C-alpha cells in the first residue's frame, strides 16, 4: 500500500479514513442542499413539494429521501423562463462566466452555467485526476480537441495548467498536423477519446511516423469507455508505447472519476462528489461491490447550477478491490458499463437510437422501416443507416439523402453512411423491433 505523500494532489482528503469521508460527504451534502434551497427557485420548489428542508438532512440515510433530477427535468426547467437556464440558477446571471452545453443527442441540448468559482472547481477536479495519473510540471501536454461549446477537454486544459504542465492547444489542426506538432514539440502526453487516440496512431503510421517514436509517456482518455476496456487499453498502450488512463465526467455533473497510475479500476473523487448506485429494479441503494446499478450523483461544491442527486442513467458497479495507491476513495469496476436508457456512445458522442428514429420518421419520402448498424472500421466507429425510399420518390434520392444527412448531423452530432434498400426489403417486426445493431465488441 503506497503512502508516499507525493503521489497525492491532496493527501489529507485522498487518504482520509472512510468513516470521516462519509461524515464529510453528509456535511457537504447538507451545505449544497441548503445553498440550492435558499438560492435556486427550482430546487426550493422541488424540495418543498417533497416536504423537505435543509434541517432534514442529518445523516446519510436522510439523503436517500431527497428527490432526484435527471436530464429530462433539466430540459423542462430550461424550456421555461427566465432564458436561458430557467429558474434553476442559484446565482445572479451576471455571475455566470462560462457556457457549455450537452451534445443533445436525446433531444434539446442542456445548457450549463458556471461561475468563475465553478470553473476553478472544474480545474480542481481535473487536477486531482491528472496528478493521480502522474502528470507533473515537467509534462508538455497536447490537447487535440476542438475547443467548442462542449466541455470535453476544456477543463482538462485548465487542470493541467494548474498542475504547472505546459499545455499545447491542438484546436483546429487536422490529425496529421496534430501529430506533426506533437513530434515537433516533443510532447510527453495528450488527452482524447480512445477512438481518436487509436485513429491518431493509424494516421501517424500512414504518414510514416511510428507513434511510439513521438515520446508520449501518458494518455488520458475520456468520452468513451475504451480506456477501461482491457483490450482497447492494451491496444492503445501498444500503439503509443505509453500508459493509458481513464476519466469519467459529464457536462452537468463534473469530472468525478479517474484511474490512477496503478491502473486498477476508477476512483470516485468522494471528497467532491457523492456517488450512489441505485438498483434498477428495486430503487434501493447498492453498497456492496459487483452489482450493476444506475448512478445517482451529487456534485458537492458546484454552485451556479447545482447538480444534486442527478440520475445520470449511467450503469456502474462498485469494485471489490482496494487500489494499491492508498487512496481511500472507493473505486468503480470497469468504468461506465452501460446506459440505463440504452443510449450508446459512438465516436465519443452519446447516441440515442430514438433520436435517429425521430429524424428518419420526419421524412415522408422514407418508409417506416430503417436499420442502424454501428461497427468499427479499424479503430474508428462507423454508423450505417439503412433506409427505404417510398415508391414514387426515387427520383429525389440525392436530395433526400442530403437533407437526411444534414438533419442527422444537426440532431445527433454524428455523420452516417447511407444504404438505400428496395421498398419493403428491410426486416419487419411483429413484436419488439431490433432496428439498432451495435457490432462493436465492448
Amino acid at each position, binding site marked *: 500500500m503506497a503512502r508516499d*505523500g507525493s503521489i497525492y494532489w491532496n493527501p*489529507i482528503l485522498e487518504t482520509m479514513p472512510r468513516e*470521516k469521508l462519509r*461524515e464529510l460527504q453528509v*456535511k457537504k451534502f447538507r451545505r449544497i442542499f441548503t445553498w440550492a434551497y435558499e438560492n435556486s427557485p427550482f430546487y426550493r420548489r422541488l424540495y418543498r413539494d417533497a416536504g423537505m428542508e435543509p434541517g432534514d438532512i442529518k445523516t446519510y440515510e436522510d439523503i436517500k429521501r431527497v428527490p432526484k433530477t435527471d436530464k429530462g427535468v433539466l430540459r423542462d426547467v430550461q424550456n421555461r423562463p427566465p432564458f436561458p437556464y430557467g429558474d434553476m440558477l442559484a446565482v445572479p446571471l451576471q455571475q455566470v462566466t462560462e457556457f457549455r452545453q450537452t451534445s443533445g443527442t436525446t433531444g434539446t441540448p442542456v445548457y450549463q452555467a458556471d461561475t468563475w*468559482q465553478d470553473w476553478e*472547481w472544474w480545474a480542481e477536479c481535473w487536477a486531482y485526476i491528472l496528478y493521480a495519473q502522474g502528470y507533473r510540471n515537467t509534462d508538455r501536454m497536447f490537447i487535440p480537441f476542438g475547443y467548442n461549446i462542449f466541455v470535453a477537454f476544456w477543463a482538462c486544459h485548465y487542470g493541467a495548467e494548474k498542475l504547472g504542465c505546459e499545455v499545447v492547444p491542438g484546436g483546429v489542426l487536422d490529425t496529421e498536423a496534430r501529430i506533426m506538432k506533437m513530434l515537433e514539440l516533443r510532447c510527453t502526453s495528450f488527452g482524447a477519446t480512445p477512438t481518436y487516440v487509436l485513429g491518431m496512431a493509424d494516421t501517424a503510421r500512414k504518414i510514416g511516423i511510428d507513434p511510439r517514436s513521438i515520446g508520449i509517456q501518458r494518455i488520458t482518455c475520456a468520452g468513451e469507455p475504451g480506456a477501461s476496456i482491457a483490450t482497447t487499453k492494451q491496444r492503445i498502450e501498444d500503439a503509443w508505447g505509453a500508459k493509458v488512463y481513464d476519466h469519467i465526467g459529464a457536462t452537468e455533473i463534473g469530472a468525478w472519476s479517474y484511474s490512477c497510475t496503478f491502473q486498477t479500476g476508477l476512483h470516485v473523487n468522494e471528497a467532491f462528489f457523492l456517488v450512489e448506485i441505485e438498483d434498477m429494479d428495486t430503487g434501493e441503494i447498492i453498497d456492496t461491490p459487483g452489482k450493476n446499478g444506475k448512478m445517482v450523483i451529487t456534485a458537492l461544491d458546484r454552485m451556479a447550477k447545482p447538480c444534486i442527486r442527478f440520475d445520470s442513467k449511467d450503469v456502474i458497479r462498485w469494485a471489490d478491490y482496494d487500489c494499491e495507491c492508498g487512496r481511500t476513495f472507493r473505486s468503480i469496476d470497469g468504468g461506465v458499463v452501460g446506459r440505463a436508457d440504452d443510449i450508446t456512445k459512438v465516436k465519443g458522442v452519446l447516441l440515442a437510437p430514438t433520436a435517429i428514429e425521430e429524424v428518419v420518421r420526419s421524412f415522408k419520402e422514407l418508409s417506416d422501416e430503417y436499420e442502424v448498424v454501428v461497427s468499427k472500421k479499424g479503430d474508428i466507429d462507423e454508423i450505417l443507416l439503412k433506409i427505404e425510399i417510398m415508391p414514387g420518390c426515387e427520383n429525389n434520392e440525392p436530395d433526400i439523402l442530403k437533407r437526411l444527412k444534414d438533419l442527422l448531423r444537426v440532431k445527433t452530432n454524428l455523420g452516417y453512411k447511407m444504404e438505400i434498400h428496395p421498398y419493403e426489403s428491410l426486416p419487419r417486426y411483429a413484436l419488439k423491433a431490433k432496428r439498432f445493431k451495435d457490432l462493436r465488441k465492448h
Partner: protein
Amino acid sequence: MTAGYDIKKMDAKIKEIRKAAEELQELGGDIEAVNKNLVRLLASTKMLELNISDAISVL
C-alpha cells in the same frame, strides 16, 4: 493522513486570505480592476477551503 500537516494553522491562514480579500473589496469600491481580480482570488481561496478547511470539521 494529517501527520506532518498543521491543518488548523493552514485553515487560519486561509481565513486570513479571505478576510483580506473581502476587506480589499470594500476598499476597492467601484474599481473594476480590483473587484474582478478579487473574484478570481476568492475562487482560488474557495478551492483552498474545499481542500483544507472542510476537512477540519471532520478530523
